């Protein structure tokens, strides 16, 4: 059986390696996302009912409902949410991913990413910026207004610029960003810079006012994490192609909803294995401390699933101070990840490790055997909705996810 599993894993990882995530369009959720409905609200992480949602996610849901005109204010939104008339589903069930609360509603603009090798697509909303934003649970007028600007001005311009430019090879852009100090999850500055550089000429040539274009460029420039919403769907369409390989123990989904952390394993199809979301260990912005922290939340851990993010920690010296202080610590975490993965990435390479490919293809069996849990670099949200990011650091999935998955995997494939 071991040989069969190894073979299946090689197949799964080979698909990951051959992925060609390509940005092909900017659309709106209702039109692009398969199975989307007007009364459907997508959220990050494994399935979760309204009652169990954490503060920031509830806030984001409220904001989403106000944006769509489903409710006028918080009270109405909460009542409607609890009524059963709203369908809450994981982004992951609709080929999508969303950072932090990850809430996506019908009219929100989304990036459309296509895995050119296999034809499958993935979607993600555009990043609003930092501080009081929807994904941290804020739903004030300011937030709604910004979301509307993004839908009315930002997204259509980007769409036209993209049409002008032609599809953008995200794999190559991510590979370059990794060599410039990014890791694609918690550090996206280089990626954001590369993206602006790529799209700016086409934005400038659009038939729009200079003020409008300037505002768009300033918006992107002012948000170091703008690229996150591109790296995430790139990773999503990459690993989706490796899902449902019979006999494979490769982990193809990791995601959190602020209450639970969930994983899915290739050889076990769509089944979620969940456990309590952990608390991030890290550093806090002035005025904040661990007391203020929300549990781990968001689909951004799809980056680690695809072999970047925390798995490329050694590529991001800036992350270092969040994980213990020395460059050696960051390198050590990456070296540990090699022990729980099937392969080394063909394309994403780490300069400080002699351009060794990043650890790619998390193997459920190795995680349980070695006791090494995937290392995740992530931001920390305030536990109260609407305040924003309060810090950043390192977190691990709850080990029971992997233990439970092993039990089912052994039952299905064991001798």
């Amino acid at each position, binding site marked *: 059986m071991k040989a069969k599993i190894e073979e299946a894993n090689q197949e799964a990882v080979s698909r990951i390696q051959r992925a060609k995530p390509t940005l092909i369009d900017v659309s709106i959720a209702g039109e692009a996302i398969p199975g989307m409905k007007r009364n459907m609200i997508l959220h990050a992480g494994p399935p979760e009912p309204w009652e169990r949602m954490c503060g920031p996610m509830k806030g984001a849901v409220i904001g989403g409902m106000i944006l769509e005109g489903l409710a006028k204010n918080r009270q109405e939104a909460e009542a409607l949410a609890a009524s059963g008339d709203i369908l809450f589903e994981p982004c992951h069930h609709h080929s999508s991913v969303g950072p932090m609360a990850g809430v996506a509603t019908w009219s929100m603009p989304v990036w459309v990413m296509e895995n050119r090798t296999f034809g499958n697509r993935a979607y993600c909303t555009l990043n609003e910026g930092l501080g009081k934003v929807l994904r941290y649970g804020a739903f004030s007028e300011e937030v709604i207004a910004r979301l509307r600007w993004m839908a009315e001005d930002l997204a259509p311009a980007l769409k036209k610029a993209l049409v002008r430019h032609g599809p953008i090879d995200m794999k190559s852009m991510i590979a370059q960003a990794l060599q410039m100090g990014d890791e694609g999850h918690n550090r996206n500055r280089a990626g954001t810079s590369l993206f602006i550089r790529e799209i700016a000429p086409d934005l400038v040539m659009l038939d729009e006012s200079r003020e409008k274009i300037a505002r768009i460029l300033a918006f992107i420039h002012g948000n170091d994490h703008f690229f996150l919403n591109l790296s995430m769907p790139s990773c999503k369409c990459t690993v989706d192609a490796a899902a449902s390989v019979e006999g494979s123990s490769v982990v193809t989904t990791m995601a959190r909803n602020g209450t639970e952390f969930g994983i899915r394993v290739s050889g076990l199809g769509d089944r979620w294995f969940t456990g309590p979301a952990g608390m991030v260990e890290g550093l806090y912005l002035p005025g904040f401390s661990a007391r203020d922290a929300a549990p781990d939340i968001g689909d951004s851990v799809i980056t680690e699933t695809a072999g970047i993010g925390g798995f490329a920690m050694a590529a991001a010296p800036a992350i270092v101070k969040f994980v213990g202080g020395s460059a050696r610590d960051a390198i050590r975490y990456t070296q540990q990840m090699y022990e729980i993965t099937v392969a080394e990435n063909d394309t994403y390479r780490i300069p400080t490790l002699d351009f060794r490919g990043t650890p790619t293809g998390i193997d459920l069996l190795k995680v*349980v055997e070695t006791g090494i849990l995937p290392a995740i670099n992530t931001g920390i949200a305030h536990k109260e909705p609407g305040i924003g990011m309060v810090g950043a650091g390192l977190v691990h999935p709850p080990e029971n996810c992997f233990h439970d998955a092993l039990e089912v995997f052994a039952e299905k494939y064991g001798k």
Partner: protein
Amino acid sequence: MNVKKISELFNKELVVINMGLDSFADNLRKEEVKVLPMDWKPPAGGDKRLISLLEKLDA
């Protein structure tokens, strides 16, 4: 009985992976043997149930 691989070993430099007591790796190093000490710990944290599940898939 095929001993070709053992004969090969006799004609090569020993390159050792040490799994267990660190002192064995230290001693090999003193003898200028190339050795990689492992940070071995019981698999699956020593959890018998998990180990038996892993063994079901070992075969």
